[in-house]
């Protein structure tokens, strides 16, 4: 098991920890039995991710992945957040040990889950291909 410096940095100083009281979308993924739960809060304005925060119960790479994922989408168009892959998260962290890759997947899924929540409340904004993308992810 070897964590990169980036992972250790995002673990020890996680960015965007916390809750957004009036979030536009909230997603939660994982379960405590397996040792990982991630919760993502999104604040969306004009199709831009104005703010994002997370809460995570999980190992070092789960926390680091959450932190990195929020950094990667904060201030970006929602379309980019939608396209965020676990690969991008892992690369931005300079890699994760093989058996920790699922942590980056959780981060991707938590963001998608939050977006799903957002679109369920704002169906008019939902892009035509969103469901197809969500499906692809769960393959």
């Amino acid at each position: 098991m070897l964590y990169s410096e980036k992972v250790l940095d995002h673990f020890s100083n996680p960015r965007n920890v916390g809750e957004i009281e009036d979030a536009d979308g909230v997603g939660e993924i994982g379960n405590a039995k397996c040792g990982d739960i991630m919760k993502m809060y999104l604040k969306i304005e004009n199709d831009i991710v104005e703010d994002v925060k997370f809460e995570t119960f999980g190992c070092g790479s789960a926390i680091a992945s959450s932190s990195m994922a929020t950094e990667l989408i904060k201030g970006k168009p929602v379309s980019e957040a939608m396209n965020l892959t676990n690969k991008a998260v892992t690369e931005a962290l300079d890699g994760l040990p093989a058996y920790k890759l699922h942590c980056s997947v959780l981060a991707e899924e938590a963001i998608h889950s939050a977006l799903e929540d957002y679109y369920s409340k704002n169906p008019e904004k939902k892009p035509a291909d969103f469901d197809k993308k969500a499906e692809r992810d769960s393959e």
Partner: protein
Amino acid sequence: MEKRFVYADNAATTAVSEEVLAAMLPFFREGYGNASSIYKLGRDAQRAVEDARSKVAKALGADPREIFFTSCGSEADNWAIKGTAELMAKKGKKHIITSVFEHHAVLHTTEYLEKHGFEVTYVPVSDKGLIDPADIRNAIREDTALVTIMYANNEIGTIQPIEEIAAICHEKGVLFHTDAVQAVGHVDIDVHSQGIDMLSLSGHKIHAQKGIGALYIRKGITLPNLIHGGGQERGKRAGTENVPAIVGLGVAIEAATRNIAEKNAVITQRRNKLIDGILKLPYTRLNGDRDKRLPGNLNISIEGIEGESLLLMLDLNGICASSGSACTSGSLDPSHVLLSIGLKHEVAHGSMRLSIEEDVTDDDVDYILEVVPKVVTRLREMSPVWEKMMKGEKYE
């Protein structure tokens, strides 16, 4: 609060002590002879090996001819179990008894044997982490080849009723092996009077080098080899003798078994202070019997957080500890030991083991008691699980 370095993971491994290293050093570049060589350089090496063997024997109450050096505790466990299995299979005995919470060096070996025609009974442990000798008695059958029960558990430190179990085995004519890797140096052991037939130990848990261990085999048991080849270890374990490590093990075990009671008194007191201090945190529990446990061991579950991130936070504060978290082992399930005493998965994930020795001072204890709550609070603050718990919601 000034940052300190506190090594509180002696159950994982220990530093080689100064006196052990000093004893080893002459055997790397000066006394490097092969202990099987006939010239003086070799004879001196052999004498050093035999001297170490006597020390190990003395520490266990055994005869030097009953001590065989191995490359680690795992090898000793594998040898004892597979060797006995091979030996007894010839007599048609293909049943083995062990417990559900043994070290993997035992469990993965018995699982291997299950794939090769052996039947294995895994006796349960109580919620306190103790084995009931009656369960062993009930499990013994006509075809039982071996009972193997660990002396002390490596995660929760509970000490098992070894003598009672050994007595039952002897009454029934069954061989008894104990994995004493965690016990040696912390409890008084006398293999002969305790009726132990085979005992595994490992050097790196008692300040000798990693990669050296020993198996005690009671005289009269002719265990088949695990590693065949040259005539080393009276033909029972091949491989050129690791002279420096063996010499170090001799010195280490002598030191570790000196004044056990005195050491334990000091360590137990500090350990108890740690337990009481950490248990002040809400939603925490001590795992394993409070009294029947190794003096330096505490294992506490801390709900709402996950173990690996706790360890990493402690590490950032200079504290080395360990956890039963699945995430530290690369598997998906948390520690089989914690599950065996009835913990739910989500609780087992958030456990922490500290294993201290006398070098962990009172100041270190205070330091740990300052850091742990701070770190736990921080992790709980970012934990959605904790949030739900506080709201009284279920979080499974």
